[in-house]
């Protein structure tokens, strides 16, 4: 799990940002990542007009004036990066979510998967580990595959057994990886179908850095996905923008 901090100016432009592993002490991680983002802009907490905490650890951000769910924040952040987007697909380390948004970046409907590792970054991390490949390399390698291994299990535990069997049978690692990326994408695409996704859709979260998942998900949804330059901070960006709105309202 990662902690992120984004700093925006009075016009809503990103001034600085930081990402780090959150560890088990969310309060310490929040303070540390915020310090790093502030230091990157040569500022301190005293220079901040407002802060919003979001994500699983949103109530562990002591300097946050309020908390908002990551659903609301991802919607706002995606809208700021591309106002044409009408959907956000966020695949993080521990959960995945699909959000349908309106032209203002407000949430119309959403669906989440946060009780099963399948369909999340954790699934890919575990499987890549089984193949002896780092998560960063997994996506690039998967794109080189000429065929797709079929992973029938929807459960991470059983899928891992399947992968071991495929390795033992001499299946190519790239082919297995492409199958795994497709498996994650299929889970998320099913969620998206449940809420009636409207393109264009933006993909956010750390798994958006995996090009094989982006391609597979786009194929399953029937529309290419928009991937911002730094997809893992979109939620934090939305939180910063909402903090800015709140600060402006307060005067």
């Amino acid at each position, binding site marked *: 799990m990662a902690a992120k901090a984004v700093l925006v100016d009075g016009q809503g432009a990103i001034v600085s940002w930081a990402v780090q592993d959150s560890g088990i002490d969310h309060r310490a991680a929040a303070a540390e990542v915020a310090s790093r983002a502030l230091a990157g802009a040569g500022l301190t907490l005293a220079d901040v007009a407002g802060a919003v905490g979001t994500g*699983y650890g949103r109530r562990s951000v002591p300097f946050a004036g*309020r908390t*908002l*769910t*990551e*659903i*609301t924040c991802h919607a706002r952040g995606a809208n700021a990066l591309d106002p044409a987007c009408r959907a956000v697909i966020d695949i993080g380390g521990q959960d995945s979510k699909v959000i349908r948004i309106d032209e203002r970046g*407000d*949430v*119309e*409907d*959403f669906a*989440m998967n*946060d*009780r099963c590792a399948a369909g999340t970054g954790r699934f890919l991390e575990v499987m890549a580990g089984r193949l002896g490949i780092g998560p960063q390399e997994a996506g690039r390698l998967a794109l080189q595959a000429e065929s797709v291994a079929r992973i029938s299990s929807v459960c991470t535990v059983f899928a891992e057994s399947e992968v071991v069997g495929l390795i033992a049978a001499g299946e190519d690692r790239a082919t297995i990886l492409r199958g795994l990326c497709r498996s994650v994408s299929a889970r998320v695409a099913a969620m998206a179908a449940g809420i*009636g996704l409207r393109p264009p859709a933006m993909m956010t979260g750390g798994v958006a850095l995996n090009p094989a998942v982006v391609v597979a998900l786009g194929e399953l949804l029937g529309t290419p996905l928009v991937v911002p330059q730094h997809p893992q901070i979109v939620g934090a960006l939305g939180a910063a923008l*909402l903090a800015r709105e*709140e600060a402006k309202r307060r005067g």
Partner: protein
Amino acid sequence: MVEPSARRIALLCAQVPGEIVEACGLEPWAISGREETAADAALPQNLCSLVRRAAALLRPAATPGLAAVVLSDSCHPLLRLHDHLQAGGGAVPVLLLRVPRRSDAPAVAFFREELERLARSLESLGGRYPDDQTLAAAVAAGAHRRQARSAFLAATLANDGPELTAELLRGLEAHAPLPEALLAAAPLVGGPARPRLLLAGSCFVSGELIRVLGELGAAVVAVDACGYARHGDAAAEPPAGADPWSALAEGWLARPPCPRSEDAGSRATAAAALAAAGAIDAVLYLRTACCTPQGYDLARWRRRLQTAGVPFCAVEADSPAWSQPRLLTRLEAFVESLARRPGARCAAG
């Protein structure tokens, strides 16, 4: 009417009329799903969580005075529970009541016979087969309770009427006394503007959920969920001299439908009408985990309300405990989205 030493008869689901048990001189105990109990480990994990939790209660050791269980044939998990209890998984007699999914004349006639059959079974378990006068009194009392709950719901649905609190919610439960004094003292929604919600679906709608939603900034003004009175219930006392068996069968089947009924879709239409009238702002549907009828029902509600442009959110739960972070995030996100809608009652956050 219920004798002081009456034996307790568990009823599951809410489709089983307690009036017949009362008329037999026994104590009806409607299992609500909100009891503090863990799921029975002997039943499959993917079986309805309500049924698994209820099964743990259906033993004299867990429920003192329990003499028998009456199950409806509402759904497959209940039939599985019936088989499980009959095969030795339970320690008391278990009876099955077949409840029609329609309310036409043949269905009423069929159900009348089923009620008579149930009364004979209860007689064999220590009850008393009711004469017409006794049954008529029980039916009239039941109709009176339904009328009171309908009036209660009309009050909470009125613009700027009282909001439902955990205490008031109890009054909507079958066989619970109506807290009229609490209604008079209930807080009015028209104070700080908050989105007004209708809660639909599962019996796991609970006082705790209402409290959680209140803390998140919403007000619950209506409930249309299993085990509770449903708005639109035009209960009427049967005319004097009417056959009480037919009156009970007909009156029972004329209640607002539940997800198992043929005309279940009318509930979603009624909710859309409430929204159009400004009585509610949004609907939160709670699905009991692994409940197939609610799975279909949820799709009906979503389709109907989306067509009507009514904000709608569905969450799934396997117990009446709503403090899990997973559920809180969903509820919180929904309330946030309501607050940010154009024309929302409250300021966007």
